[in-house]
């Protein structure tokens, strides 16, 4: 639906711009200038912003991430029938947006986290097309608790659950990233050949 609207809007903009160029062969006065506000100012700017939002949304999808062969196994691990896997239990139980599961769990919170994810994505594209990905993929940095806490941080089962009460400072330590969530919840992707 969004793509259709954007295509129609693109066609409208192209028609207006072509009409404007014809207009400008005969005059560059008031009417042409007023027309140009719409044809060259408002509509292209609006369409450009909409396209950037659309493209950004598409590039957050699981289907986009798993379009590269290096990610096939990780994509398949989303559907593994094993609740011990953090990945599969979150995906299969709809604990994350299924369309954007990869992005949700592999992006640090905040705008800087978003920028960092984009830069890492660009790096991965470069390696995929012009380099060679390692046989075994690893995280470039330790998995941050902040990613878990952006959803779980205020949840009752996190704050009051038995597993997080000992030692008493555990929740504070988790928030301060002094202890990793993955020390106990250590099964991520279950990769199958």
């Amino acid at each position, binding site marked *: 639906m969004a*793509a259709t609207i*954007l*295509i129609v809007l*693109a066609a409208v*903009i*192209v028609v207006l*711009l*072509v009409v*404007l*160029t014809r207009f*400008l*062969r005969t*005059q*560059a*006065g008031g009417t*042409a*200038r007023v027309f*140009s*506000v719409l*044809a*060259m*100012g408002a509509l*292209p*700017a609006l*369409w*450009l912003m909409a*396209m*950037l939002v*659309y*493209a950004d949304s*598409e*590039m957050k999808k699981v*289907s*986009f991430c798993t*379009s*590269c062969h290096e990610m096939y196994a990780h994509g398949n691990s989303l559907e593994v029938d094993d609740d011990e896997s953090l990945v599969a239990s979150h995906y299969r139980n709809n604990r994350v947006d299924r369309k954007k599961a990869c992005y949700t769990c592999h992006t640090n919170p905040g705008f800087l986290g978003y920028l960092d994810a984009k830069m890492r994505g*660009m790096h991965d*594209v470069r390696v*995929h*097309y012009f380099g060679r990905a390692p046989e075994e993929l690893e995280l470039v940095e330790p998995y941050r608790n902040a990613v878990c806490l952006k959803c779980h941080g205020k949840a009752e089962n996190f704050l009051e659950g038995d597993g997080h009460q000992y030692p008493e400072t555990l929740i504070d330590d988790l928030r301060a990233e002094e202890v990793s969530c993955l020390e106990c919840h250590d099964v991520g992707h279950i990769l199958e050949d």
Partner: protein
Amino acid sequence: MVSPFQLLPSGPDAAARVLRRGALSQVAGVFVLSVALFTKMPLILVVVIPLGGLLIALGFLAWLWAVIWAESG
């Protein structure tokens, strides 16, 4: 000393010329960026999104220049 702005063409004919070229740049930008609606190949998206955005932005700058500066010449 001559200001660099005085070296730029100005006047109604220059405004029309700049607007036409800016419009063509935006047409090209729309076509290039529209490719992103039909493919999800990462390499293509990485190329067409910045290129299309740049062409549209250049056209916008041309429009801005024409309506603000060129007419005053």
